[in-house]
């Protein structure tokens, strides 16, 4: 009986501490919301519904870490003055395993 209780407690404990792989203690998931509107020819909304989708990027982040490339990558914005206005630019920078940072090529955009 005592062995059964111990085994049960051990199983519960193990299943409760399941974690994502690699260095991540939490999963990198996000909920994306999509609103779908059905509109007739005169512009009246016939139907409107919101769909939720869970998107996880653990695989990519684990790959970067396991390959010794980077331990984190993030989007950042910066303000570029152009004439009298200021334009917000967006890029991705990765923190590499050697402590340096690198701007990722091909991911520049303007907000």
């Amino acid at each position: 009986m005592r062995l059964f209780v111990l085994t049960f407690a051990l199983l519960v404990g193990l299943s409760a501490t399941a974690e994502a792989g690699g260095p991540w203690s939490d999963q990198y998931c996000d909920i994306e919301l999509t609103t779908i509107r059905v509109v007739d020819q005169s512009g009246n909304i016939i139907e409107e519904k919101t769909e939720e989708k869970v998107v996880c990027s653990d695989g990519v982040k684990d790959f970067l870490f396991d390959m010794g490339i980077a331990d984190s990558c993030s989007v950042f914005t910066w303000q570029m003055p152009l004439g009298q206005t200021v334009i917000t630019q967006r890029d991705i920078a990765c923190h590499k395993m050697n402590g340096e940072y690198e701007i990722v090529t091909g991911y520049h955009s303007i907000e």
Partner: protein
Amino acid sequence: MKLLRVIILLSSILVFSGIAKGGELSETKGSFESMPNPTFLGEDIKYGLTAFVWRYTQFMRFRLNKEEKTMHKSAVFFMLQEVPNGKIVSWYSKKRKANGKVRVIESYPVSGGYCRIYQAYIKLNGTERHKTNIGCKMDGAPTWEFYN
């Protein structure tokens, strides 16, 4: 004889602790090895006016293409906004032998904002140049202003 042993032991401890202290890395030491030594600006320049927005002089007379220019600008602004002193931010071109690195040398407060002295380095087809510049962010200003 016993006294001699004690003296040898104490002096060796002193010597080894001296070596260990010399090997410690300061905040910016280490990172400097992978970039040329920066040109240090004088105190008068350090607290002088930073009157320019981003200018083409920051490309150090290199004929970079649009993507390379954007990456260099991006590296400078990311470094100024996010990166601690001494840490290198780099960029590479996928299409040709062009790369750049930037790092902050010193950060200091000024009246109404703060400034960061940084070193920028660009290498294109074997030719390399580097320069030291200052970027300042004043309270309420939308973006950084530069010394040069």
